């Protein structure tokens, strides 16, 4: 049984190469916690979407990846924050196909579908998206 939580990782996001670093960090922490390949891919993809939003709409921000596991459940929580202009209409931003940035408008709604928990708080100067996944821990540990 693992007791110690894996230390959180924080990635500063300022340009498009940080998107790659953020999703790499998310995959690596998810792997260390014991998430399978499918969840690693979901998490890395979700972080990629959120980090890109930071670069595109806010310019800079951060991504913190947290091991929030409990005894028999692996849990990961990821907080992506920026101090950009904020999302004026969150309901609209969560709609498929809606984008103010010329993209597909698939990022936020897609990310919500990939994750178990998904929350956005946004005001001018402060946007925070928190996502998470939880899975029962199997007794045979993954490598």
């Amino acid at each position, binding site marked *: 049984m693992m007791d110690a939580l894996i230390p959180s990782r924080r990635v500063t996001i300022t340009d498009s190469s940080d998107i790659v670093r953020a999703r*790499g960090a998310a995959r690596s922490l998810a792997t260390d916690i014991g998430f399978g390949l499918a969840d690693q*891919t979901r998490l890395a993809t979700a972080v990629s979407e959120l980090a890109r939003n930071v670069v595109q709409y806010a310019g800079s921000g951060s991504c913190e990846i947290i091991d929030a596991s409990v005894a028999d459940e692996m849990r990961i929580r990821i907080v992506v924050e920026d101090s950009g202009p904020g999302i004026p209409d969150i309901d609209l931003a969560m709609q498929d196909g809606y984008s103010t940035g010329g993209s597909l408008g698939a990022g936020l709604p897609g990310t919500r579908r990939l994750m178990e928990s998904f929350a956005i708080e946004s005001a001018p100067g402060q946007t925070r998206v928190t996502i998470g996944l939880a899975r029962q821990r199997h007794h045979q540990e993954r490598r």
Partner: protein
Amino acid sequence: MKIPILQLGRILLVSIQVDLTDTDAMQFQNDLVNKIAATEALGVAIDITALDVVDSFMARLISDTASMARLLGAEVVICGIQPYVAMTLVEMGRDLIGADCAFNLEQALKILNGLIALRGDSTLNSGDDDGRSYPF
């Protein structure tokens, strides 16, 4: 980071082997479209076996690149999409990749050759036309 584009007759082969930044990906799109035009390639196979994340941006870039190639006159087949990437793309919703896909490079080349042969038949016979172009 430059993605090598290999030419084999009138087919271009691309294998994306590294995790691309958005800038790299856009550079790749630009390079590939220009190379297709310069070589008048009839087919392009893009192998993305090594990509373990394809987010909505990358999916759109791949789809757009395929559309651009078709506008120039080349057929495109994407190959090697990882199973977990496929699951994630479908879970995210909508048809994020709008291009023909194949398991591997070998199958991609077979499909390309088939598509080109199919198209070649219809275009070869249109030499005596009246100057108008026909879509089919």
